[in-house]
């Protein structure tokens, strides 16, 4: 099962990013193997439709869970349609590693 955690940088020590569509990086975590991969978000500075494009990317990656700080209305509808679980963390000051540790 693949989980995406939005991240501000490309390593597990990076701060967790509270935005979804305009997050800087995505950390793809394989929950079985515990391996992480990082992808830069091409829609980071998009004018519009960042959420929609990001959802498309999630579907392409075959993700089943997304952890972020908030989701826009379009992203929410689409993720719901593709049966991707949304998780909202409202804590500040957590790193990607903290989040990964919490899941396990």
């Amino acid at each position, binding site marked *: 099962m693949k989980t995406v955690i939005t991240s501000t940088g490309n390593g597990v020590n990076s701060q967790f990013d509270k935005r979804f569509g305009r997050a800087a990086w995505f950390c793809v975590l394989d929950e079985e193997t515990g391996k992480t991969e990082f992808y830069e978000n091409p829609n980071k500075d998009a004018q519009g439709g960042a959420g929609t494009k990001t959802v498309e990317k999630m579907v392409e990656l075959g993700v089943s*869970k997304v*952890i972020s700080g908030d989701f826009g209305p379009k992203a*929410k509808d689409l*993720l*719901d349609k593709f*049966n*991707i*679980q*949304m*998780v*909202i*963390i*409202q804590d500040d000051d957590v790193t990607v590693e903290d989040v990964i540790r*919490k*899941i396990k």
Partner: protein
Amino acid sequence: MPRRRRLRRMVSPPGFKGYRPYGANSDDSGYVELLYEEYEALKLADYNLMNHLEASKLMGVSRATFARIYESARRKIAQALVESKEIKTVYGNAHLDKDWYVCNDCYVRFTIPRPHRHRHHCPMCKSEKIELVNQK
């Protein structure tokens, strides 16, 4: 121009597409269209036994509007029964509220996608102390 109709919030759509009378004299006496929000109003008032004020807040409309929707629902169902008409549910002006849950141990909010509705634990800490919240 009339005022725009506000969308009525509802928790879940009806679990059926319609009801059809059987044993009626005429085969086809037409149908009535029951809107989703009318179904919701009837459910909240007569099944969940809420008062109109509570129910109207849940649906995001005024108490008076709720009463109008509810009345319309009752009249349509009465008409269908008396005239042995089919009831069809149509979308209407509803907007579905997705189910958001909150974990009472680590306070994350999350959704449970439809195919996994039976999984009732927090995706982060696996706690089973989760609760439904209605987030707009």
